[in-house]
């Protein structure tokens, strides 16, 4: 489904190579985790897949169901099924969360040639999904992420994901800044979306999220490359021994 081949990325503004040949394939129905020390390029990979400005792909490719992602605008990627849960969700003063969600859902439906949701249907859907994530009416009314706590922002990301039902979910450190209860809520939200035709790429610095979202495959990223790939046991190894051992071993 998601195929990343030999992806090399540098910053547009400066001569700094960040990704140095990433290879990764996520199959439908599978959960891949990427772990790695800070600064190894995890967020950069997720941004490049989502289409953020400021990066230049110097080599390699990234496709979703065979379609070249790198040629698409961010909104086209979203319509194709890419969803990125941001490490740092953006605050948008003046735009109500509800308006934001409705605009997004309907824009994607339109792009896929589906009818827009009626106001009533949308409301029903949003209330139902919000409830399971313990997002109250007030949070839906407030401007997008403005004044939200760290945990609220992350739950709001998962709500968007649940509303948009993407094919390929990329979660960038969705666990950071969450207490145990919030983490459980988020994990439940993610697990509820697991399905045979949906893929996940879960980026995390720590193993603890992976206790709740069981990965099928774990990758270790360091210095812009995936240096080791294994099963869930690899995450436990990181948990016990830290990154130093693995990095020493691959070097």
């Amino acid at each position, binding site marked *: 489904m998601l195929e990343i081949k030999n992806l090399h990325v540098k910053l547009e503004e400066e001569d700094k190579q960040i990704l140095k040949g990433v290879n990764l394939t996520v199959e439908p129905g599978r959960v891949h985790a990427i772990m790695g020390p800070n600064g190894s390029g995890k967020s950069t990979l997720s941004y490049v897949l989502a*289409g*953020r400005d400021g990066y230049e792909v110097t080599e390699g490719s990234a496709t979703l169901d065979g379609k070249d992602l790198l040629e698409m*605008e961010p909104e086209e990627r979203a319509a194709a099924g890419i969803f990125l849960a941001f490490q740092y969700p*953006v605050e*948008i*003063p*003046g735009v109500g969360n509800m308006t*934001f969600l409705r605009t997004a859902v309907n824009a994607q439906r339109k792009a896929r040639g589906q009818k827009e949701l009626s106001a009533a249907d949308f409301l029903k859907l949003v209330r139902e999904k919000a409830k399971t994530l313990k997002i109250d009416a007030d949070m839906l009314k407030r401007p997008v992420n403005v004044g939200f706590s760290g945990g609220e922002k992350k739950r709001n990301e998962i709500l968007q994901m649940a509303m948009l039902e993407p094919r390929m979910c990329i979660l960038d450190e969705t666990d950071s800044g969450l207490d145990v209860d919030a983490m459980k809520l988020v994990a439940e939200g993610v697990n509820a979306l697991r399905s045979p035709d949906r893929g996940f790429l879960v980026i995390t610095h720590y193993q603890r999220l992976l206790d709740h979202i069981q990965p099928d495959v774990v990758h270790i990223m360091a210095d812009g490359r995936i240096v080791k790939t294994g099963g869930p046991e690899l995450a436990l190894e990181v948990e016990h021994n830290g990154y130093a051992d693995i990095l020493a071993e691959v070097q």
Partner: protein
Amino acid sequence: MALDERKMTATEARLAAMQVPEVGCTKEAREAALERVRRMGLPGRRDEYWKYTRPDSLVQVAAPRAAVFDAGEEPMFSAFDRLRVVFVDGVFSPELSDDLSLEGVQIDRLEDICCTNDHWAEDLYGVLEARGQSPVERPLAALNTAYAGDGVAIRVTGRVSKPINLTYVHKSEQSDVLLHHVIRVEPGAEATILENGPAAARFNKCMEIDIADGGRLHLVRAQGRDHERRAYTSLFARLGAKATFKSFTLTVNGVLTRNEAVVEFTGGDAVAHVAGACAGDGNFHHDDTVFITHDAVGCESRQVFKKVLRNGATGVFQGKILVKEGAQKTDGYQISQSLLLDEDSQFFAKPELEIYADDVACSHGSTSGAIDEEALFYLRSRGVPAAEAQDLLTLAFIAEAVDEIEDKAIAEDILGRVQGWLARRR
């Protein structure tokens, strides 16, 4: 100080081309105003107060032509039950207007202010304008008092059940119009006045508003969408104790607009909010000039102005809060912001505070910025197309000023219109 020759020549040339009309019993006020114009001279390019806005086309003898624009949509505010008072190229139209009788308000044309009937408006016409000439001169407002051809006198005596809607229809490409309204809100009375329409190729409008103790006036205006029209508007408001005045102005299009608002607090614990939002594309120059004088204890003034500019459009904000000696517990707030959608557009801001009392809370801020790229990407990553995402952010920016309108139905109507216009311009 004697006028410099250039200014005098320009002023006399303009005056020579005009005729003081005999409208109602305003003769003395008009003569006095004419004298003021002669003494001050019409604004020139070198005037400090006109540093960012060229007054030439407002001053010159002939009004530049302005095509009439058919927006192909329902007139503004038509969703609301309202009393319509319609002017076509500056002339009151009884056919297009509603019957002017409405409980709690008395509406007369200026020509009905007869010397024989001791009309209340006689004591107001030109009075607040004259007061507002100091400390900063506003000669175009005095010109208006002297030459205004039409207008209404509105006296609010109770709680008026529906808004009074002054509509200014622009029909002639060459219309050069001066309208003057006087409004008096009696103690404890309350009304909403809506204004809409481009009015003329060149429009000079003056509104004098006297709000007695405990009176409340809401003013919401939309200046029409004709691209080529020019407008100079002045508003002089005087507030008694515990009075409230709230004004919001929406400006979309128009090659030149200068809106001056002069507000004076004369009684304690009064509130005045002056807000505006404009969106300009290309040949568009918009100037908000505000002067608020706190001359009473415990009053609150608030200025909120938002400008969205692109393709070389220009925005100007000059806002001053003057707190006189003894005006303790003044709460003065002022914010002016521009959203520049490209690098060709410009925003000039001159915020000023002058304070002679020690127990006051005054603040001002001014910002100028581009669209928030992070927010734009966030929206796009959720599937919202770039243009739509930009509109959403633009609307959110404007909404903070529109929010100043107390009547939420009207505020929503305005936001809905703006959203439609933005979408159509893409």
